[in-house]
């Protein structure tokens, strides 16, 4: 069964450094998403992306965050200057066209900011 893949599985970064999290969505999917889950807390929406542009974003997704689809397969989340509170599990998801399609999640990248 096709799946969303994320790399790396674990990223350790010094505070203030830039980090790029990578995702390969399912190939025929058109909608892409990033969520995060701080340890022990609920999953929170960051951003959705469709047709090469952001379609929705949350308050968490401030100027420090950006997303890009640099080629036909990858979808990236960049955090420009990481803070301690950015430490979380970051999930990428994708879904087919159509309003009611479920979002399929990757295994996540655990980001640890030191």
């Amino acid at each position: 069964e096709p799946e969303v893949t994320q790399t790396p599985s674990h990223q350790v970064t010094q505070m203030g450094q830039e980090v790029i999290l990578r995702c390969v969505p399912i190939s025929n999917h058109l909608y892409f998403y990033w969520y995060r889950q701080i340890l022990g807390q609920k999953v929170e929406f960051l951003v959705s992306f469709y047709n090469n542009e952001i379609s929705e974003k949350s308050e968490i997704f401030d100027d420090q965050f950006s997303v890009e689809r640099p080629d036909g397969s990858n979808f990236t989340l960049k955090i420009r200057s990481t803070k301690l509170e950015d430490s979380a599990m970051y999930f990428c998801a994708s879904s087919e066209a159509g309003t009611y399609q479920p979002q399929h999640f990757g295994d996540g990248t655990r980001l640890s900011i030191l």
Partner: protein
Amino acid sequence: ELKVEQNPLFLSMQEGKNYTIYCNYSTTSDRLYWYRQDPGKSLESLFVLLSNGAVKQEGRLMASLDTKARLSTLHITAAVHDLSATYFCAVTNNAGNMLTFGGGTRLMVKP
């Protein structure tokens, strides 16, 4: 602001027993999803509920939706150890695809 509340947050039950997890949400929505998450793993889609009165079943799990009460339930029948996981409900805002998740219910099924 859309809010999603689940209860209980933690559930320990014996194999063979039945139980229900509840998911309440604060504003109208036309889509509700249930996901399962194993420790350290991703979220696996279980059910998509689209209309009032919708009921879906897969194995020992059955999900239902009451849009008037803004309530969804996930019923577990004759629980088995393999069902131990955290279960999340999630609701979309009507305008788009942003999922708002509940806090999750950590289910532990004891042999």
